[in-house]
């Protein structure tokens, strides 16, 4: 993973939530959340099922408009239209077309998600090699196992450099070696000046601030 470390670090980036309130239907899941992440910082969101971890991440990525408050992404001193435009979002499904090969999927996302001024990242084959699954490049994604699909989804984070990674349960379906790979990837990203917001149940081996959702209910 040294080739990634040698890359120019990300320009100054900040992810700021101010008074962020998110609603799902008529349920208030996140209320008055404030945080400010800068280069090299990570935020880990924990909490029991159904306390709004995924909702928070979708709100940060801009898929869910906030009921109140706002999410701001600042990139090289300029305000972006939303933090989503600076972010890689990895949700419960990886966004791969089952009928296309892993390589074709990654090529597509490379041209779709590349940010101007940040270079082109790894090639799909290099990224798959780094994720330990070079043999799946030519296979349709429909034939892959859940863990292999996950690795193809994670390879997307390497092919188009984006400063903010928003990861929803990134460890799902990964074996022990895969979890080590992911932790190394996350550390490299932070070292290069990236930002990470991850929702997880299993601990991630990175230095990060913690946000525990639903703790109010526990305290009450």
């Amino acid at each position, binding site marked *: 993973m040294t080739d990634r470390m040698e890359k120019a670090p990300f320009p100054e980036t900040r992810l700021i939530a101010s008074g962020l309130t998110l609603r799902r239907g008529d349920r208030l899941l996140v209320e008055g959340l404030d945080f400010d992440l800068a280069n090299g910082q990570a935020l880990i969101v924990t909490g029991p099922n159904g306390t709004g971890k995924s909702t928070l991440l979708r709100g940060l990525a801009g898929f869910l408009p906030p009921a109140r408050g706002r999410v701001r992404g600042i990139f090289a001193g300029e305000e972006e239209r939303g933090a989503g435009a600076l972010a890689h*979002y990895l949700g419960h499904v990886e966004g791969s077309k089952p009928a296309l090969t892993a390589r074709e999927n990654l090529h597509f996302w490379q041209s*779709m998600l590349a940010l101007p001024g940040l270079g082109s990242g790894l090639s799909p084959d290099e990224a798959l090699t780094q994720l330990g699954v070079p043999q799946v490049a030519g296979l349709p994604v429909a034939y892959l196992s859940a863990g292999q699909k996950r690795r193809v989804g994670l390879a997307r984070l390497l092919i188009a450099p984006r400063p903010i990674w928003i990861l929803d349960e990134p460890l799902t379906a990964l074996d022990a070696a895969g979890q080590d790979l992911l932790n190394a990837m996350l550390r490299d990203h932070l070292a290069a000046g990236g930002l990470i917001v991850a929702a997880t149940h299993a601990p991630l081996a990175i230095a990060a601030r913690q946000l525990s959702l639903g703790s109010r209910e526990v305290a009450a």
Partner: protein
Amino acid sequence: MTPAPLSALFLREIRAARRIGGGGTMGVVFFLILVTIVPFAIGPDLNLLSRIGPAILWIAALLATLLGLDRLFQADHEDGSLDLMLTGDTPLELIVLVKCLAHWTVTGLPLVVAAPLFGLMLALEPEALFGVTISLLAGTPALGMLGAIGAALTVTLRRGGLLMAILVLPLAIPVLIFGVSAAGAANSATTPFMTPFLILCALSLATLAAAPFAVAAALRHMSE
């Protein structure tokens, strides 16, 4: 070197549609079956068939267009691609337009190509064959764009296909009226061809310009 996002999207759509196999061939086979059934129901009256032939071809094309539309955005919604496209730099309206163009290329265009062959089965005159084909070429983009609005509105529904048809078919009536009158006018000396044909072209151009905004708005709302 990475190709521009929109051409990459177009290629991806065409590849996925061809590899799944459904898409174009399914639509054409459905079109063929509809056109074949009608003479059985109406009987072997060649004059009657050639008189109503353009209308039959148009109705069959309309139904065949609806066939594959429900998956247009639903597949992307289910595999998470739709969310990721929202984080890209490309405006969703352009993504929608390119997806619809690719969809038309694999499903609409084969119908246009097959129409003159299937028209022979309905005893159409050469002029009428030409009229049907050229009117389908001008009109199927409008059908596809209207259908895309229905597909976007039903993107989160598991069995949204029927609801989509109910939403879209009434909107398609103007296209059907001018399409059939242009097709029918091609072999008649009394009715003009150009007037309905130009209105049909206008309908296609108007939906091409306006529908992407409606579709993108619906998709943004549905992705919440």
